[in-house]
C-alpha cells in the first residue's frame, strides 16, 4: 500500500509516528503466499461420517471415535454465541473442508528426511527450519542472535496434519513426551484418556465442542515429575489449503515439580474468503509445576478492504490443579480478521498463580474480542492481568475478562491493568471486565487508566536533560516491556519487531 492509497485517517497530535507506521505496515502481510502441493480432502461439510473419517485417518482407537461423536452430537444441539462485540457474516459450517492433508503425508514419514521437500521448504521460508540444529527457530533476525543458544523443538502442523517434530529423541532421554496429538492417542492412550477434556470439557462452548468433534492434529506434551524440560517446545501452525478450517488440539501436562516453556506461532496465505480456525488448548499443571505458554498469532488478518482473513475462535484454559502450580499466558495477537479468545486460568490449588499478558493489535477491518478469566478457587491464589489493545483503521478491539474470587479462595489477590490506544477516529476500543468477589480477605484491583505517558516519569526524564520525544520513547518502552518481557527471548524479538509501538495518549 503506497502512501497515496492510504485511507485518510486523521491522527491526532502526540501519537508517535513510529506507532502509526508500524501498525500501518502490518497491512502488508508477509506470510500471505501459498504452497502449491497436492492435497487430499475429506468431502466438504460436517456430519458423523466426516467425524469418523477424521478419526480413521488418524488411526484412532474406538474410544476416541466415540468421544468425537459424542461431542458432535452435543454440538448439533448448541447455538453459536453472539455476546462478543464482533460482527461477521454467518458462518456456513457445511461449506468448509474439515480435513486436508498433503498427499505425501499419507505414508506417515518416519523421519524428517522422508518428508516432502516442498513442505520443508514452506517452513524454511516461514523461518521455521525443521532441522535439528542449535539455532533459534521461528524468529526473524535470529541469525543475528548469539549462537550459544538454547534449542527449540518444533512440531510443524500443516493444515490438518503434523509434518514432523524435531528433537523427539533428545527430549525422550529427559522423559519428556513431545509429539503430535494424533500420535499420543495411539502411543500414550492412558495419558490422553486421563487428561483430554478434563480442562475444556467436550460440551464447554460451541467452538470447543466443534473442535472436540473434528480436531485433526495438534501437539501433545507430557513433562514427568521433577523434570525441567531441557529445551523450549514450539508448535508452528500453517493453514495452506483454501476453504479449509484448521482445528487443532493441544494438550500439555506438567507433572509435579516440572517446568516447560511452550511457544506457538501461526500464519496463513492471503485468500479472498474467510477461513475458520477453532482450536482448543488444555493445560494441566500439578503440584509445584510451572508452564509458560506464549503465542504470536499472525494469521492472515484480511486485506485493507476487510476481505478474507482467519476467523479465530479459540478456547485456551489452564488448570492449576494442585498447590503452587503456576501458569503464564503471553499473547501477541496481530493477525486474524476475527479473534475470539480468552486464555483462562483455573486456580484450584492453594497458592497457585496465573498470569496473563496480552498485546492485541487490530488494523483495517479486524475485530478482536479477547481477554482472560481468572477463577480463584483455592486459598492464597494470585493472578495478574496486563492487557494492551491497539486499534487502527476501522478496527474494533475489546478486552473482555472475568476475575472471580470464590468464597473459599481466601487471602487471594488479583491485579488487572488494561490499556488501549486508538489510532485514528474511525476505530473503537472497548473494555468489558467482570469482577466477582465473594470473600473479604482477597484483594482485587482493576485499573484501566488513561495511558497518556505518566507525567511524573516524563518529568523525571526531562529533568535529566532528555527532550520530550526521547522521554516519551523511554517511558513507553518501559510501559510495553511489561508484556514483552514475559515472552521467551525468541518471541520477544519477533514481538518487538511487530510492536515497536508507543501507547501514549491511550484510553483504557
Amino acid at each position, binding site marked *: 500500500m503506497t502512501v497515496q492509497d492510504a485511507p485518510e485517517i486523521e*491522527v491526532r497530535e502526540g501519537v508517535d509516528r513510529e506507532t502509526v507506521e508500524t501498525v500501518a505496515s502490518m497491512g502488508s502481510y508477509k506470510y500471505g503466499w501459498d504452497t502449491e502441493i497436492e492435497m487430499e480432502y475429506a468431502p466438504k461439510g460436517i456430519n458423523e461420517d466426516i467425524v469418523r473419517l477424521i478419526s480413521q485417518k488418524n488411526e484412532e482407537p474406538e474410544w476416541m471415535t466415540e468421544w468425537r461423536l459424542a461431542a458432535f452430537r452435543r454440538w448439533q444441539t448448541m447455538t453459536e454465541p453472539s*455476546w462478543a462485540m464482533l460482527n461477521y457474516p454467518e458462518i456456513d459450517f457445511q461449506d468448509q473442508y474439515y480435513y486436508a492433508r498433503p498427499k505425501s503425508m499419507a505414508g506417515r514419514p518416519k523421519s524428517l528426511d522422508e518428508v516432502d521437500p516442498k513442505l520443508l521448504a514452506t517452513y524454511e521460508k516461514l523461518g521455521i527450519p525443521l532441522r535439528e540444529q542449535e539455532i533459534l527457530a521461528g524468529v526473524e533476525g535470529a541469525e543475528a542472535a548469539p549462537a550459544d543458544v538454547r534449542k527449540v523443538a518444533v512440531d510443524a502442523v500443516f493444515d490438518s496434519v503434523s509434518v514432523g517434530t524435531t528433537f523427539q529423541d533428545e527430549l525422550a532421554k529427559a522423559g519428556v513426551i513431545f509429539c503430535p496429538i494424533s500420535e499420543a492417542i495411539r502411543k500414550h492412550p492412558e495419558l490422553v484418556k486421563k487428561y483430554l477434556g478434563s480442562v475444556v*470439557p467436550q460440551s464447554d462452548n460451541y467452538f470447543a465442542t466443534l473442535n472436540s468433534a473434528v480436531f485433526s492434529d495438534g501437539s501433545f506434551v507430557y513433562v514427568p515429575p521433577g523434570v525441567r524440560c531441557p529445551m523450549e517446545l514450539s508448535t508452528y501452525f500453517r493453514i495452506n489449503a483454501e476453504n479449509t478450517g484448521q482445528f487443532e488440539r493441544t494438550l500439555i501436562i506438567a507433572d509435579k515439580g516440572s517446568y516447560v516453556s511452550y511457544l506457538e506461532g501461526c500464519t496463513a496465505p492471503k485468500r479472498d474468503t474467510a477461513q475458520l480456525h477453532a482450536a482448543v488448548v488444555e493445560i494441566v499443571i500439578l503440584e509445584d509445576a510451572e508452564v509458560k505458554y506464549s503465542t504470536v498469532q499472525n494469521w492472515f488478518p484480511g486485506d485493507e478492504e476487510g476481505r478474507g482473513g482467519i476467523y479465530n475462535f479459540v478456547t485456551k484454559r489452564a488448570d492449576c490443579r494442585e498447590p503452587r502450580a503456576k501458569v503464564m499466558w503471553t499473547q501477541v495477537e496481530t493477525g486474524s480478521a476475527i479473534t475470539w479468545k480468552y486464555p483462562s486460568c483455573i486456580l484450584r490449588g492453594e497458592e497457585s498463580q496465573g498470569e496473563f499478558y496480552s498485546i492485541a493489535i487490530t488494523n483495517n477491518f479486524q475485530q478482536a474480542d479477547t481477554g482472560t*478469566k481468572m477463577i480463584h478457587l483455592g486459598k492464597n491464589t494470585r493472578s495478574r492481568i496486563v492487557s494492551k489493545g491497539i486499534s487502527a483503521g476501522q478496527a474494533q478491539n475489546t478486552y473482555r475478562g472475568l476475575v472471580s474470587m470464590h468464597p473459599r479462595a481466601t487471602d487471594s489477590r488479583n491485579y488487572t491493568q488494561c490499556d488501549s490506544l486508538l489510532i485514528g477516529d474511525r*476505530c473503537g476500543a472497548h473494555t468489558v471486565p467482570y469482577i466477582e468477589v465473594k470473600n473479604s480477605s482477597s484483594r482485587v484491583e482493576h485499573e*484501566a487508566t488513561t495511558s497518556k505517558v505518566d507525567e511524573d516519569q516524563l518529568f523525571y526524564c526531562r529533568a535529566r536533560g532528555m527532550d520530550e520525544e526521547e522521554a516519551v520513547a523511554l517511558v513507553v518502552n518501559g510501559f510495553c516491556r511489561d508484556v514483552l518481557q514475559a515472552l521467551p527471548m525468541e518471541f520477544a524479538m519477533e514481538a518487538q519487531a511487530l510492536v515497536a509501538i508507543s501507547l501514549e495518549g491511550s*484510553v483504557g
Partner: protein
Amino acid sequence: MPEAALIQTPAVEGAPRPSPAAQQLQARLAATPRPRARATDAARTDALDRLSAQGLPGPRHEYWRYTDPAPFNAAAPDPVPLDAVTGDPTLFAGVDKLRLVFVDGRFDAAASDDLSLAGVEVAPLSQADAQADHWVGDAYGALEKQGQSPVSRPFAALNTAIATDGAVIRVTGQAAKPVQILYRRSDPAADVTIHHVLRLEPGADLTLLENGLVGARGNIVIEADLAAGAKLHHVAAHRAGVPRVSNIHLFGRVAEGASLKSFALSVDGRHLRTESVIELLGDDAVAHVACAMLGDGAAVHQDDTVFITHTGLRGESRQVFKKVLKNGATGVFQGKILVRPGAQKTDGYQISQALLLDENSQYLAKPELEIYADDVKCSHGSTTGALDETALFYLRSRGVPRERAVVLLVLSFLADALEEVEDEALRAEISDRLEEWLTARAKG
C-alpha cells in the same frame, strides 16, 4: 462472563405456547391498572407498546446478571408492616426548601408546602395530566424512550405506562430554594409507581432533594432535561428497609455547558436497583453520578447500574460508587461509558470500590468502556478488599478504640463519593448521618 453461561445446558426450544414471561407481564399489568390521563395518554400507550415488545427480563438476561428481576416482575409485592422501618423523615429537616409529599404514590397537598416558588413552576403529575395541552405531554416518557437503546429497561417503560403521580417541575431561572420530594407510606402493601419530569430552561439552576419511604415496592423514574447552561443538583437518600424492593431510574439529557450532578446515600437497600442513564448531548456538558452505600445483612442487595453516553465535544463525566458491605450484604455495580464517534476531548472517569467488612459479603462489578473517538481521556478503576490493617493499627496505636477506628476508616473510604455533594451544609448533614449509623452499628 457470558462464556460461562455456555457451560450450562442450552434450553431446547419446545412447541410454541404462551411464554411464562408474557403471562407474567399480563399479570403484572393487570395488578396495576393504567390511570386516566390526558396530556400523557399517547406517551403511556407508546410505553406500553415498548414494554410488550421487550417483555419483562428473565434471570438469564445479561443486564440482570447480578440482580434477580423476579421481585420486580411479581404481580404484587409482599406487604411490609408500617412500623418495620421508620425511614429518615428528618433528613434535610434543617434545609429551607419547598416540600412535596407523596403518600403511597399520590400527591398529598395538605402535607406539602405551597407550590409557588420564584424561578420554578411545580405541579403534581396527576393535575398536570388533566390538562390536555400541558407541556408535560411532550416531555413525559421522551428521555425514558431514548434510554431504551442500546439496552432495554422494561421497568422504566412500565413506569411510564402506569405511573400514578409525580412531580412536574419546570425551572426558568435560579430556584429560590431547593425542592424536596418526600415519600411516605400509609398502606403496608402499597405498590408505588411514580414518575417525575424535570425541565430546566437555559441557565436555570435547581437543587432537588429526594428521600423517605416509597412503599412495599417502589418504581421511580426521574426524567431530567437540561437546556444549555442549566444546572441540576440532585441529592437522594434511599432507605429501603426490610423486605421492600425498589427500582429507580434517572434519565438525563444534558445540553451545551449544562451540568447534572446526582448523589445518592443508601442504607440497607433491600433489593434496590438504580439505573442512571445520561447523555451528554451538547458540547462542554457535565454529568456526575455518585453513591455512598452502606449495607448490613444478607437481605441487603443493591445494584447501581450506570450508562453514560458522550455525544458532544469536551464532555466530562464522573462515576463515583463506594460500597461498604457486612454480614452477607451484596453490592453490585454495572457502569458504562460510551463515547460516540466524534465526541473528542471527552473526559470520562469511573471508580467503583467496595469495602468488605467480613467474609460473607460480596461485590460484583462490571465496569465497561466503549470508545469510538481517539482523542479522549477515559479511565475506570475498581477495587475490592477488606479494611486496611495497617491504617487500623496506626489509629489504635494512637489510642483510638477499634470500633471508632473502623468508623473513621469507613468514613474516609466514603469521602470521595460525599465530595460529589456540592452544598457544604448538605454534605455535612449526610456525613453526620453516616457517622451516626456506623457508630450505632459498630456497637450493635
